[in-house]
């Protein structure tokens, strides 16, 4: 029995590492049938949580050191060699801090808010394909599930802002919810263009649809390399920055604007949970961007498919996270009205246009004269670039301010 168990564990680890199907079956066969679903669930969830927890710690360190180097300074480098143990120190600090709750705050809702944020965010990890046979939940409507749990996070932001009985928290929560709702629409519409072309809401099938190569195995069939895919990817990235409240869209938690907004009255472990949920949200949306646009766990060149699939997923995810950190170090914070104008007046029309162009790309796929691909690319790119320029110019034009009358106290 013990021998079977150990053998099962070894097979599980070996098969996961080498991209083979049915990794857990030998290990699960040791257990009675009634217990098997529970064990299977535990085996699926624990590496996910542990892995993303480790990635979270690494990303906080990477962010601080990366931002430091961008700003001509070193990041943290005292706690371990090159500051490797800094996340450990941060974690210890967060856990041992006193948990202060305002006297008039609504204690139950105040406690539930971080939990109500972390649970949907972790749920969102369930549908992403991390490797060839590494999907926690295979679902026909996986993308819809992802967006549904993403929408549930807004309620917790409200709970946090309301229960603190603090006008800054309330203002911050209102702005945060307005921002998240506004940017959900370009997010979803830009992913609808991918869903339309791939023909399925299941992330597994979307990744499989991107699994071929052109030009002798050198040009992957990823959607980001099509004009509508590139536009969709950029819109998706901007919206995902706004959804996870990262700079330049971090008005809800900006220290100089609203004293941390809806997080003002949180300290210690609850704040750590909010922080964790924000980073997990970034990973989840980054993972979805990788799945939808960057070909998931496929390698860019066919010859490199020998490298296991989860390595590619992690590499692409880390590339996206580095891009987010880079943007954070570069762009100043947007004001809340600029933010909302950008979402409704620019991103929404562009994403709808992207849908149309995706359809045109799909229906012109039947062209087969020589260099049809280039012609299609040029046509679709022009159809996106011209309205982009015109819309950008129209929105940037100087707005005439109304005549203002001032009454001075004399």
């Amino acid at each position, binding site marked *: 029995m013990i021998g079977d168990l150990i053998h099962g564990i070894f097979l599980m680890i070996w098969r996961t590492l080498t991209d083979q199907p049915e990794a857990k079956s030998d290990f699960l066969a040791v257990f009675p049938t009634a217990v098997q679903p529970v064990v299977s669930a535990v085996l699926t969830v624990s590496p996910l949580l542990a892995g993303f927890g480790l990635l979270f710690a690494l990303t906080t360190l990477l962010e601080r050191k990366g931002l430091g180097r961008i700003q001509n300074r070193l990041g943290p480098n005292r706690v371990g060699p090159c500051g490797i143990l800094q996340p450990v120190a941060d974690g210890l600090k967060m856990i041992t801090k006193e948990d202060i709750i305002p006297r008039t705050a609504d204690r139950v809702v105040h406690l539930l808010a971080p939990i109500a944020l972390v649970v949907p965010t972790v749920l969102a990890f369930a549908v992403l394909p991390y490797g060839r046979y590494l999907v926690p939940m295979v679902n026909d409507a996986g993308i819809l599930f992802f967006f549904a749990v993403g929408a549930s996070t807004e309620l917790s932001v409200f709970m946090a802002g309301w229960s603190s009985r603090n006008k800054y928290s309330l203002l911050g929560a209102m702005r945060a919810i307005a921002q998240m709702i506004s940017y959900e629409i370009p997010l979803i519409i830009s992913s609808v263009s991918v869903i339309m072309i791939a023909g399925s809401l299941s992330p597994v099938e979307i990744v499989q649809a991107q699994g071929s190569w052109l030009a002798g195995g050198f040009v992957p069939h990823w959607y980001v390399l099509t004009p509508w895919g590139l536009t969709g990817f950029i819109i998706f990235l901007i919206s995902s920055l706004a959804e996870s409240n990262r700079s330049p869209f971090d008005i809800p938690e900006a220290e100089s604007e609203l004293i941390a907004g809806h997080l003002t009255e949180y300290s210690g472990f609850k704040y750590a949970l909010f922080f964790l949920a924000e980073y997990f949200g970034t990973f989840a949306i980054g993972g979805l961007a990788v799945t939808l646009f960057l070909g998931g766990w496929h390698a860019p060149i066919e010859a490199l498919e020998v490298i296991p699939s989860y390595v590619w997923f992690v590499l692409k995810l880390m590339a996206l996270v580095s891009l987010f950190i880079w943007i954070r170090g570069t762009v100043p914070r947007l004001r809340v009205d600029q933010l909302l104008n950008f979402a409704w007046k620019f991103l929404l029309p562009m994403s709808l246009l992207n849908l149309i162009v995706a359809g045109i790309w799909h229906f012109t796929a039947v062209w087969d004269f020589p260099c049809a691909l280039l012609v299609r690319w040029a046509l679709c790119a022009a159809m996106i670039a011209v309205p982009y*320029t015109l819309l*950008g110019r129209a929105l940037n034009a100087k707005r005439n301010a109304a005549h203002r009358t001032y009454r001075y106290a004399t």
Partner: protein
Amino acid sequence: MLGEGIIKGMAETAKNFLGSYHDPERMVTVQFPEERLPAKEAARSFPFLVFDGQDAEKGLRCVACQICEKECPPQCIYITKSKDKKPDYVGKAQFYPAVFDIDISVCMSCQICVEVCPFEAIKMDNDVELSNTDRFGGLLLNKQLLAKPNSHFHKIHPTEADEVDGRLAAEKAKVEAKAKADAEAKAKAAAAGAAGAPAPKPAPKPPTPPPA
């Protein structure tokens, strides 16, 4: 075009990021306890007492005139004059401070004590690593802690130290010249007095007033 500024900005930050690994201009961090920036000459933190030579007791310039104690705005200097005198840099016998305490938790580094000292005895130090575990007695610096050699003064404020040394040397030269002139006049008077006995006494000259 929309978005052009962001792309340019991202190129600039990328340059910063990559340059921070090899270009000293793009990595301006000085890791404090291991490396230090050189202090500027006019930097000042708290006062110290200057002594000439090697011995802090004998060469201390301070003569306990207590002008700095009276002029100090927060009154953080505590001086007790000694009972006896010791010779100063020109040889004249002066008092010296038996107790000279400065409370650096009160001192506001205004430099008034330096400005009013007629003996160039108290100058501004630039040491800032003065943390102490005792926040009452530990920040009351006494004479032993405050007395530092003139070479230290030269090291931290070279131009000022040179100027002070020049002034003190000029003073010393003047005093020595005056002493030499007095000695010569006295020797001449003694020689004239000794030579005046055998010769007939000349008509008594009205006493000339000494040169003012």
